[in-house]
């Protein structure tokens, strides 16, 4: 009996040592926020809607892509599929359809009236826009706005293919996001070599 317990102890310690030594190398656990900000904390990020500026460029990184980088959402399949679900649940789909537009402009094309960076899209959802985009400030928690913003980018092929949604269980409206030719997202997330023809 004793020997059995000792053997189990040895195996456990061994496993712990192995995990400590090799764990971080083989697997990095995805960081998930389990208590994201509540609805009331919806605030627009610091951004600008155009790169045109009077005089010299401002020092420091581009506020749209630099600083605290929320682009995590668009590299994460769970966030993108949550964004896809919310895009229907919050009735975005009623105006923008499955990206082709209708009452609202298309989102799957390469025209971005109010900016294509994830922070621009976040701001568009939260602030609303004057020609008919409603303001969702105080209506959707920030975490979910980021997820929707990331999904909106996936509609135009601006997210990594491995993370983009594949075929949904619905009427086939269009080719799935994951099948789009991938465009390198702004901010250089993917080195040019990765997007070049193999």
């Amino acid at each position: 009996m004793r020997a059995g317990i000792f053997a189990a102890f040895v195996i456990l310690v061994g496993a712990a040592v192995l995990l400590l030594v090799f764990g971080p190398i083989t697997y990095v656990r995805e960081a998930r926020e389990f208590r994201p900000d509540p609805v009331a904390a919806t605030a627009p990020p610091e951004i600008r809607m155009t790169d045109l500026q009077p005089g010299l460029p401002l020092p420091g990184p581009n506020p749209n892509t630099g600083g605290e980088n929320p682009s995590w959402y668009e590299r994460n399949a769970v966030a993108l599929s949550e964004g896809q679900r919310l895009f229907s649940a919050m009735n975005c789909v009623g105006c923008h359809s499955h990206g082709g537009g209708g009452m609202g402009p298309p989102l799957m094309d390469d025209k971005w009236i109010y900016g294509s960076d994830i922070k621009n899209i976040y701001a568009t959802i939260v602030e609303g826009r004057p020609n008919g985009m409603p303001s969702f400030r105080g209506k959707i928690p920030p975490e979910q706005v980021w997820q929707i913003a990331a999904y909106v980018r996936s509609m135009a092929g601006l997210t990594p293919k491995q993370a983009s949604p594949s075929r949904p269980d619905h009427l086939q409206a269009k080719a799935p996001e994951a099948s789009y030719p991938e465009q390198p997202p702004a901010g250089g997330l993917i080195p040019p070599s990765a997007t070049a023809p193999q």
Partner: protein
Amino acid sequence: MRIGLLVAAALLLAMPAGAQTATPAPNSVAPANAAEGDWVLAPKDYANTRFSALDQITRDNVKDLKLAWSFSTGVNRGQEAAPIVAEQTMFVVTPYPNILYALDLTQGGALKWKYEPRPAPAAQGVACCDVVNRGAAYDQGRVFINTLDNHTVAVDAKTGKEIWKVKLGDINQGETMTMAPMVVNGLVLVGNSGGEMGVRGWIQALDAATGTVKWKAYNTGPDSEVLIGPEFTPFYEQDRGKDLGVTTWPPEAWKIGGGTVWGWISYDPALDLIYHGTANPGPWNPEQRPGDNKWTAGIFARDPQTGQARWFYQWAPHDLHDYDGINENVLVDLEIDGQMRKLLLRPERTGYVYVMDRITGEVLSATPFAAVNSSKGVDLKTGRLIENEEKHPVLGKVIRDICPAAPGAKDWNPSAWSPLTKLLYIPHNNLCMDWESVETSYIAGTPYVGANVKMYFGPGGHGGEFTAWDPIAKKERWTIRERFPVWSGTVATAGGVVFYGTMEGWFKAVDAESGQVLWQQRLGSGIIGQPVTYLAPDGKQYVAILSGVGGWAGAIVAADLDARDATAALGFVNAMSELPNHTTKGGTLYVFALP
């Protein structure tokens, strides 16, 4: 001005004898102080015939028709309006931002004044199907328009000064206004749009002089708010009972149930009744609203002074396929089985031409005028549409090949009736669709639809048709096939010519008897407007049409939609993916005359 009208009247009298015998339809009572050469209401007359007794332009000389003048509206969205002609002036209202132009017909269409109501830009975001406006209305020196952000405005026809402006709805509830006002006995009749946004449909009567609301009738909810009282005697059993506007819905669903009034209103002065349709129930997904969903997708006859309902008939009880019931009601008196009957002709989205007794609301016949498989006819005993179970939407399942598609066999774009040929000229669609119902939640001010839809051209592979229909023989006389849905209105004339336009941009004159195309002209952009014809101060007959593609059908061009998504614009884009190869945006008025 008075002298001008007298001259116009004298000219009318001086017209050839043929014109004298070419009297309008029996019920085509022109509104007060309107000369036959004028066009004061979008539907031309109370009976909604869109027939003009002018006959200078005939089937023999129409081939010589030439452009007289043109005018750019400066707005490149869908131009669905009918130009209005009164006081030697033409009044044209644009899509959002709803600019009202007055063009001087004594000066070849020179700009007299313009009135800008400046509607809230955010209203564009709750307009379901492009930011259209279907025209102004003229009565007693005033011009009336509705704005996209739910205002009805009266403007002085001579000066362009605002007389009154009242707010009737709320864009935060998803409401907009797109219909052309109707004026009856000093009352301006208007209704709301927004059946895709979970609004509660209504029609209101405003005092033409002050804008004061005289009555307001909802099309869902308790009888007291629908204005159903002791006078209400519907023909069919299914429409009798207390508070059906509440009991035919799940609890509270009638509050967001649609039944808007964005189409046409007719008036019979002899019976003193107005007739108006009610649009689809919301949401589109029928499983979220079990019941007959009264009083949506039907037609009301009401007393214009009080709004009290006289009868009701439902085209599509518990509507399954977005068959709004707002089309034009053409009032004619015809002989059926040896008896003169007061009739109401109605080419409807369900795909049938209904011939109804407009005194009682009885359906005398309902005959398909387009490809229909979503229903198997109308039971004339019960009045009920006989559903085809195979085409019944089911949550999460794609039902394929449903005809007609959501815009119906015929949408808002009005037909015309010629009392000379006794034919109804119907511009319409040839569309079918795949439909998947999905669950949707109501969020005020956002779409409340719950369906993935994908439309395509129907049998024959063409998108639209222009049909001359004989309502007595219950069959078509002739049909012209068009590549795209015919989304324009039409006008019939005593000269034996009928005008309509195509979405590619052809403006056509066809022989009212044979359907032969006698003349056609390519305009700047696709045509979805309503042609009108009038007598100008120079005594000549003119034909006017707005060009400028858009509307639900043309949204792919007007709003630059992306055809890679088949469900874009509620599924219409899939059928219209070729349209951008044929036309571009525009917004121009064209006026034609003989040399």
